[in-house]
């Protein structure tokens, strides 16, 4: 058995939990895109090249709001800002991955990160191939899920009104997880309060950038007490 096969065999079991999640969430994305009139081609393009679950859902909302390139770019940065944290955490681990590094960085989703930061390649299995297969398998699950959703959505006529709420549910679940993982709830509260205040002042289509400025200012001003209160 060569190294690559060994790496694939070692990687696969780690990806099983993500497989279920990505097939279902990917399918929800496919159904949502289909309900907005997008063909399979667009669904595939998004899942192959964007490959960011929550951002792909947000991009459906962005498209519904009208064509705004700058707004879309800033929103992408805001939604994906957490990736900066994953990248910082993986700086060391991805050392020496050579030609694979660009793909490993491109495919660093929340779920892949959660596996990669804890899974260890077994003895004798080259680490970079192990990382590559974890990332690649997850990517394949996501693409497959979204295609299945797109096909499903076009075959059966379901009343999809309200399916956008999948995104809300996803973020609420992440928020609950985060809330339970820390005793410092100030950051979450800053995020919610800043956004609500800015939404009251600005319109639905332009409150995100003011919210981000407000958040950045607040956390910068509150840095001292926040770091003191940090228990993690």
């Amino acid at each position, binding site marked *: 058995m060569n190294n690559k096969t060994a790496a694939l065999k070692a990687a696969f079991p780690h990806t099983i939990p993500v497989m279920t*999640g990505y097939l*279902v*969430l990917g399918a*929800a994305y496919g159904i949502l895109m289909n309900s907005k*009139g997008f063909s399979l081609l*667009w669904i595939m393009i*998004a899942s192959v*090249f964007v490959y960011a679950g929550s951002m792909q859902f947000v*991009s459906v*909302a*962005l*498209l519904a709001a009208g064509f705004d*390139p700058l707004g*879309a770019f800033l929103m*992408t*940065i*805001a*939604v*994906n*800002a*957490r990736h*900066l*944290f994953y*990248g*910082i955490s993986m*700086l060391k681990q*991805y050392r020496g991955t050579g030609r694979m*590094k660009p793909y490993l*960085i*491109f495919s*660093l989703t929340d779920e892949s990160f959660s596996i990669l930061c804890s899974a260890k390649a077994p003895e004798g299995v080259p680490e970079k191939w192990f990382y590559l297969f974890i990332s690649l398998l997850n990517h394949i699950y996501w693409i497959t899920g979204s295609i299945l959703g797109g096909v499903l959505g076009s075959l059966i006529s379901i009343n*999809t*009104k*309200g*399916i956008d*709420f999948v*995104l*809300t*549910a*996803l*973020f*609420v*679940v992440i*928020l*609950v997880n*985060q809330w339970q993982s820390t005793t410092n709830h100030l*950051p*979450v509260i*800053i*995020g*919610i309060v*800043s*956004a609500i205040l800015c*939404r009251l002042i600005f319109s639905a289509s332009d409150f*995100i950038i003011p919210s981000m400025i407000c*958040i950045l200012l607040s*956390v910068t001003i509150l*840095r001292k007490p*926040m*770091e003191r209160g940090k228990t993690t």
Partner: protein
Amino acid sequence: MNYTTTQLILFFIIVAFGTLLTRALPFILFPENKPIPKYIRYLADILPYTIIGMLVVYCLKDVSVTQSYHAIPEAISILVIVLLHTWKKNTLLSIGGGALLYMVLIQSVFV
């Protein structure tokens, strides 16, 4: 949604590029031998939490408390998601259950 193919291609390039930028930036800014500034480490610690709070509000940006149904379907569904998730801790169940409940609510109860 009425978009030209060019607009859509441009849109997905922007979103794909923005996403890649957030994933690659740490590797570009902090090559293996350079230390990470404390302020950046602090932001990396804090921002994931604040951004999710902001995103929940973003999802609800078109909901009105003063107009008909007064955000009741949203409030019920979110409450159920929080309870379900605190109880079972099953991400798919919480998301699937919450979204289905919301769809049922706005399709057949609050119509």
